């Protein structure tokens, strides 16, 4: 398949058609910030942190959901983008109760790292009422909605990779929140297979393994992307056999 070439922050990049700008950027060492994007699950373009400027388009576009095109001229780190990312992250903090000091994911949190990178050095926390109750009903895992950033990685991993559809989003707007099955405690969700994929993909400490304390998050976020890429590779091999 003929490739396309484009420019990302003054780097010449060769990419394959169908690749996203974000994927192409990573290959030349340009890391576009993002929270909802995750290899191995579908793209939703919802967190808007990976917005990039593409010459000739009226407004920034999400790098995760924008396919590469020939002669595209992409800028990922302009002053406006930096300023907007900072505001977006401040808003994300204001939605929850992201107290890093007492979080399983302290030191291994994508939100924490992004905030430091982008320069968010203070914030306010005002979680909506639907985010207050911690769910510790599952024997192995816990869920703290006040740390949820609604990236829906867990929803997608549960549906697309595990096929259980346990997690869903209920409510809307600021009241949008995760639910297991019909909004019952997680431990009572009949559809849950306790596979832990949701916990592994969580960018923050919203989903965690029980028995882990501050800064002790162990699960690898790459689990789901490894599974899906392995599945693709190996099933291709099966076909050849």
């Amino acid at each position, binding site marked *: 398949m003929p490739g396309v070439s484009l420019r990302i922050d003054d780097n010449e990049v060769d990419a394959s058609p169908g690749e996203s700008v974000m994927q192409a950027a990573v290959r030349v060492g340009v890391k576009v910030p993002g929270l909802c994007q995750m290899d191995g699950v579908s793209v939703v373009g919802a967190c808007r942190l990976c917005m990039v400027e593409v010459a000739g388009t009226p407004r920034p576009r999400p790098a995760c959901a924008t396919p590469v095109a020939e002669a595209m001229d992409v800028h990922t780190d302009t002053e406006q983008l930096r300023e907007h990312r900072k505001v977006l992250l401040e808003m994300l903090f204001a939605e929850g109760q992201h107290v890093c000091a007492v979080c399983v994911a302290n030191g291994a949190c994508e939100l924490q790292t992004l905030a430091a990178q982008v320069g968010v050095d203070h914030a306010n926390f*005002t979680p909506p009422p639907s985010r207050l109750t911690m769910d510790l009903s599952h024997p192995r895992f816990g869920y703290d909605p006040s740390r949820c950033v609604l990236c829906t990685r867990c929803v997608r991993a549960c549906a697309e990779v595990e096929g259980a559809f346990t997690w869903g989003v209920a409510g809307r707007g600021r009241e949008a929140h995760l639910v297991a099955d019909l909004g019952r405690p997680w431990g009572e969700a009949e559809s849950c297979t306790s596979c832990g994929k949701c916990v592994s993909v969580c960018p923050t400490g919203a989903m965690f393994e029980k028995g882990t304390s501050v800064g002790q998050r162990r699960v690898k976020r790459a689990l789901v992307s490894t599974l899906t890429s392995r599945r693709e590779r190996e099933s291709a091999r099966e076909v050849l056999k």
Partner: protein
Amino acid sequence: MSNGVDLFDLSQKEREAQAAYRRHVLCCGSTACLSGGAQATQDAIEAEIKERGLEQDVRVVATGCMGLCSRGPLVKVRTRGEDDVLYADVDADAGRRIVDEHVADGQPVADGQLSLQHPFFARQERVVLENMGEIDPNRIEEYIARGGYRALRDAVTTMTPAGVIEVVQRSGLRGRGGGGYPAGTKWGLLAKAQSDHKTVIANGDEGDPGAYMDRTVMEDDPHRVLEGMALAAYATGAKHGYIYVRAEYPVAVRRLEQAIRQAKRHKLLGKGLFGTEFEFNVEIRIGAGAFVCGEETALMASIMGQRGTPVLRPPYPTERGLWGEPSMINNVETLANVPTILRRGAEWFASIGTDTSRGTKVFALAGKLENTGLIEVPMGITLREIVEEIGGGVAGGKAFKAAQTGGPSGGCIPIKHIDTSMDYDSLLALGSIMGSGGLIVMDEDVAMPEVARFFMRFCMDESCGKCLPCRAGTFEMYELLDAICEGRATAANLARLETLCDVVRTDSLCGLGQTAPNPVLSTLHYFRDEYEARVVPDTVAAAVAADAGGASAHERSA
């Protein structure tokens, strides 16, 4: 009925039947008049006519909206060879009196008459609303008698699909849902798409709070919507259509369901229409209370029984839409223009309006005016003409302050721009939008930051919650606007509000978020002094914040 000749017969028969009556009493049976007691009025009129034994001579019709909703119930008496006489505020007693004096004795009642030469009526130009107040929306015969379905018959039997698109393109018709995208171009995109499962969708999810144009068209002239859809389907190669209607409009749903049954019975929907291969069916889908479903991709998700959350475009619906197949979404009013355009020609339509905004626009004229109701005017009319002539000026002798168009996605037009031309581009230049047709007039008593807060509250409540800027941004903007309105915001808060406007407008995923800051930006642009007058020094704000325990979500440092 299998061909056009029968259609013509039916039309002829209906006209003859109507002509047999000497007088017609047209009672407005629209939702607005009904809520003002129109049913009791009509019942009284019918009883009185029966009592006097006039049934053979006089026909009573419950029609659709006559427009001047603030003066309902409205009753029109039509007599062969005479000018129509319109009565306003007709209660049951007044209705009986109209029968006694006017219908029976030919002496129009002096009280309660409204001149049809009144600018409210005289300044209008009716295309979409041409049948309103004239026909009984429950009867397909009346629609047909006024030329209905003729455009469809002629298109299907004598024109190519490309020919139909060409006419729509040449007419200059633009989408009436708000964006103003050229309808012919959109139709062309769907026509080009390759699929046996294309769909046309009529968007009747009229979400702008303060607008009821589409509702009225669906309720009071449902066949017009069906004919417009069928024309779109023929032109684009779609076999299936959906009408997505707000659940808040149960009458519209009932009338459309009935219209679909009637059209099927008369072989105007279904297979092998007009003796050709053309086939088209329509289904109704009902919303459940979500403004965001007016957005194309959210609307399609809702039709498929899912959460109405928008998805990224491209791909556009005309490439990949409902069930993954090419689909096209047109606003109800856009589609309602089409039968008339086909019947009267692209040139006729293009002669109305301005160079870039052809045709008419229906507005729901509301707010602090003498006359409020539903109006249809040629685009290019000035706001002043609408407010002062059609609307009869601001009520109670107060001063005009601003008019809001485009609802929560739009902006306000202040007095200094009252002579602006009402067309897509002029409104955009003023920082507002045409929108779907809500036009709310505000007088001197209305505080603009409170208007902005009202719309932001709406956007916050209606945000779907999928993308961060809209979900969190509308909340934070609402909190800031509330702080401003309640006198506990600082200059830094105002600056933060402007920053948020920029971020939410630029970074949101769909139109709801991208346009949510518009009412703030627009009122800030024209009425900044009202915001600044409410801003307080840091020390005052700190004291308030401490007393309330910092109940507001805003930050105080710049």
